[in-house]
């Protein structure tokens, strides 16, 4: 086995006799041909006690999406550890960005993509290390040894040593930088439908979310924020609020007036008694209709040409073939995580300790340091479990608020957002418009595509501080605008409005609207040209093997499941990435919709064919698809936030309903192609394909166009 002075792994035995194993970025950087020396701050990812019990240290946020379980599977499989000895999971306490080559953000399906590099390599290095350690004890060649369920076994005599009997030796060894990986056939955990790691905590009420953080000195904070976006406090009178028993302190903060109280109820009542005069700012005369008009203008006067190949205008001007235009509208959409935003902070003169349900631990840490003007190392940020995320917790606004409230009051403060706060001060998926004109020529090819998009500038609010106010910060507003299809004449443009409305990432980001419009237009064009819609997609994707395979697989599913009487059927394709990249997925969606007796529309069945590479945990993957269907349907039916006079009108689940148990698809069938390509999660990715498949089914059933969301007749 190749050994190196710069090992990927470092392991130490702690004073209490526990083995701690670290990634070593230095070695990783070397492998990635990064020539500059990166000073590694090692990231602990596993602990093993002297009974062999394992604690998995989760690098990624656990918000229900299942990645901690998948990452543990990758690691323990590759190290040949005994899954039954995995007794505990805890959140990483790492604070330094340099430890990880990226910021530990839990977004965009990257957990599995990066985990397949890091956790797999760590597991393989460790397995090799245990073999080396056993070989040195037995004085045999380690090549003849095998590993299984946390044991190194000498097959010639049946002798074995358990991993925990070996780890004292491990810290003396240099482990391989280029370890030997297990083959797919040798996998014991990857690909298995194992249960989630924290289920028992979650069904007994013992799981601790951000909102559950508690200690004796802790006070509860709330902020009254200006109901109008872009507004500010002119003046306020807290004298009536101070009379509310339990209210401790009232003071102005960056985005409103904060109240600190002994408990939630006192804070809420105190807040209701605040008298605040607002400067409502320039948005106070702006409503959704006005924004839509401005978005309309941006379609005509775009800010950016994303792609311009061939001559779309010329091709569209020709009278041959079949030509169609479509206009699509999407409202603001709110996240509505079950656990409203909250964070706990305790700022003292020389220290700041934070407990936060965040998706971007290190970004939040950086921004707190910047806000307080202190060194990062004076700040400790504990990441907690999250009651849902969907992109909302990638922003650090709610963490900064808690820090400011504690800093100004001197108390440790758990700053809680009511549901109303959460819904009216979200980082919404932007309201958007699309206009697409496409043409199928007489040869049945998609010969021209002209696509215009407009949305609210996402860059000032981008979740990643380094991308704020940059071109990269716009990506989450226009991602997915480039079709995967072969189109010789194509023009893609977008424009964005500079408005002080917080917009951000929401499960699936802009793919939710860009791919919606693309896939509905593809279906309409195919139908008008009398071409089978799946056949057209297959032809347009025939140079991309993985994309073609999902379409071909769906074609088979389609043939095996004839459309029943009274049903409308629709299809959609979704993708991200390019051949050669590890960041690639392809999925094909099919939906059947029928009328209910009351005239509403019910999704009878959804079929999804997904190629997200090798599947780490099929149960977890399918659970995410089930989840995605309900999420997509909630949004499609009633996911509409509207603005009047600069204020959001919806405030709670009564006027922004989300799906109940009976409001999903009646049947779901999933085919995971699991083809061995680099694995990728699917938590947010299904949002791109589910809605357009349903929209196409509705168009086929009713003959009416579905030009965006909401579709209020959906049951």
């Amino acid at each position, binding site marked *: 086995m190749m050994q190196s002075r710069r090992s990927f792994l470092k392991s130490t035995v702690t004073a209490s006799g526990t083995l701690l194993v670290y990634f070593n970025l230095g070695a990783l950087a070397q492998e990635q041909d990064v020539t500059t020396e990166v000073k590694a701050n090692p990231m602990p990812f596993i602990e093993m006690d002297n009974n062999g019990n394992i604690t998995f240290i989760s690098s990624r946020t656990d*918000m*229900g999406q*299942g990645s901690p379980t998948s990452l543990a599977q990758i690691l323990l499989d590759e190290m040949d550890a005994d899954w039954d000895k995995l007794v505990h999971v805890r959140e990483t306490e790492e604070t330094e960005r340099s430890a990880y080559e990226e910021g530990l953000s839990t977004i965009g399906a990257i957990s599995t993509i990066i985990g397949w590099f890091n956790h797999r390599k760590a597991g393989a290095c460790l397995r090799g290390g245990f073999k080396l350690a056993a070989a040195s004890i037995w004085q045999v060649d380690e090549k003849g040894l095998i590993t299984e369920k946390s044991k190194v076994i000498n097959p010639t005599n049946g002798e074995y040593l358990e991993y925990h009997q070996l780890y004292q030796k491990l810290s003396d060894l240099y482990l391989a930088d280029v370890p030997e990986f297990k083959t797919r056939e040798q996998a014991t955990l990857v690909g298995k439908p194992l*249960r*989630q790691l*924290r*289920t*028992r905590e*979650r*069904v*007994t*009420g*013992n*799981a*601790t*979310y951000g*909102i*559950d953080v*508690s200690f004796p000195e802790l006070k*509860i904070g709330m902020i009254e924020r200006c109901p109008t976006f872009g507004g500010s406090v002119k003046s306020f009178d807290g004298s009536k609020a101070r009379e509310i*028993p*339990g209210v401790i302190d009232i003071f102005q903060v960056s985005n409103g007036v904060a109240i600190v109280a*002994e*408990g*939630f*109820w*006192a804070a809420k*009542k105190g807040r209701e008694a605040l008298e605040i005069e607002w400067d409502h700012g320039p948005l106070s005369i702006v409503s959704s209709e006005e924004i839509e008009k401005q978005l309309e203008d941006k379609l005509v006067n775009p800010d950016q040409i994303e792609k311009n190949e061939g001559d779309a205008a010329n091709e569209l001007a020709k009278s041959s073939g079949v030509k169609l235009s479509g206009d699509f509208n999407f409202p603001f959409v709110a996240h*509505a*995580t*079950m*656990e*409203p935003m909250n964070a706990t902070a305790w700022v003292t003169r020389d220290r700041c300790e934070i407990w936060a349900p965040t998706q971007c631990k290190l970004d939040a840490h950086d921004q707190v340091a910047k806000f307080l003007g202190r060194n990062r190392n004076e700040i400790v940020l504990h990441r907690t*479990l*999250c*009651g*849902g*995320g*969907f992109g909302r917790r990638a922003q650090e606004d709610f963490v900064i608020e808690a820090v400011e409230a504690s800093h100004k009051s001197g108390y440790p403060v758990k700053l*809680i957002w*009511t*549901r109303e706060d959460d819904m009216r001060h979200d980082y919404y998926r932007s309201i958007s418009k699309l206009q697409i004109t496409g043409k199928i020529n007489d040869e049945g090819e998609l010969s021209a595509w002209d696509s215009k998009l407009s949305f609210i500038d996402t860059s000032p609010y981008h979740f990643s501080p380094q991308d704020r106010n940059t071109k990269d910060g716009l990506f989450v507003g226009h991602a997915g605008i480039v079709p995967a299809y072969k189109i010789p004449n194509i023009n893609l443009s977008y424009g964005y409005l500079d408005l002080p409305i917080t917009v951000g990432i929401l499960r699936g980001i802009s793919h939710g609207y860009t791919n919606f419009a693309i896939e509905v237009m593809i279906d309409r064009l195919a139908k008008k040209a009398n071409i089978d819609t799946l056949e057209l997609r297959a032809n347009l994707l025939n140079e991309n093997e993985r994309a073609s395979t999902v379409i071909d697989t769906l074609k088979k599913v389609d043939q095996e499941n004839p459309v029943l009487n009274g049903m409308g059927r629709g299809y959609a394709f979704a993708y991200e990435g390019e051949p050669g990249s590890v960041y690639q997925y392809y999925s094909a969606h099919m939906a059947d919709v029928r009328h209910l007796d009351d005239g509403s529309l019910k999704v009878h069945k959804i079929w999804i064919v997904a190629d997200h590479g090798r599947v780490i945990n099929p*149960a977890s993957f399918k*659970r995410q698809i*089930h*989840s995605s*269907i*309900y*999420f997509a349907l*909630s949004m499609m039916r009633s996911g509409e936030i509207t603005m009047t006079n600069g204020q959001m009108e919806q405030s*709670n*689940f*009564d006027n922004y309903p*989300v*799906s*109940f*148990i*009976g409001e*999903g698809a009646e049947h*779901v069938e999933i085919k995971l192609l699991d083809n061995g390509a680099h694995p990728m999660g699917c938590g947010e990715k299904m949002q791109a394909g589910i809605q357009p498949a349903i929209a196409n089914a509705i168009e086929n059933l009713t003959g009416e166009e579905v030009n965006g969301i909401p579709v209020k007749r959906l049951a």
Partner: protein
Amino acid sequence: MFQYNGYWATALFETHLILTVITSAFWEALLGTAHGHPLKKPEGAHYQNQKGGVRMINLSINGKSYSYNGDEDMPLLWFIRENAKLTGTKYGCGIAQCGACTVHLNGEAVRSCVVPMVDVADANVETIENLIKGETLHFVQRAWIEQDVPQCGYCQSGQIMAVVKFLEQFPNPTDKDIDNHHTNICRCGSYIEMRKAIHLAATFQKEGGQ
């Protein structure tokens, strides 16, 4: 007896009768019709408002006695979470829409975010923490683990508490019964697994399981 002295010792009694009327009417209007578990005003919740006096509300949570003399308008949810320090019961909406705060009040599933303290005098409250007996999980919890229902898990305490009572009412539930009477929100959409778990729990119940 565990004695708790609330922070709201000087509650404004002149206004509290009005507040009580409003909240109770609100609560009944909202819950009695819109949600699956009809909420009854708990028995024994009679009280006298003695002007100038601080009335003590005694209640039992998970078999433990508590006293409270703060703002009678405060929802039970916050007493459970902040005073009794039982954080398994969650805040989700504050208006009885989501069910994350579901507890058992005198044997009925209620949404504790809209039950004012004044209505729980002498009441017996059970929370998710009381479902496990020693090391033995309740059969609904077992079904939840068997089907690996939770995603983020935040709503699951409320889901489970609601389903325990739902299964008393519907021991052989059909899918339609579930659709019509189980109205707790799960934003993660763990409903497909949850539906299987409800059916499984019904079989456990028939087998007489804890």
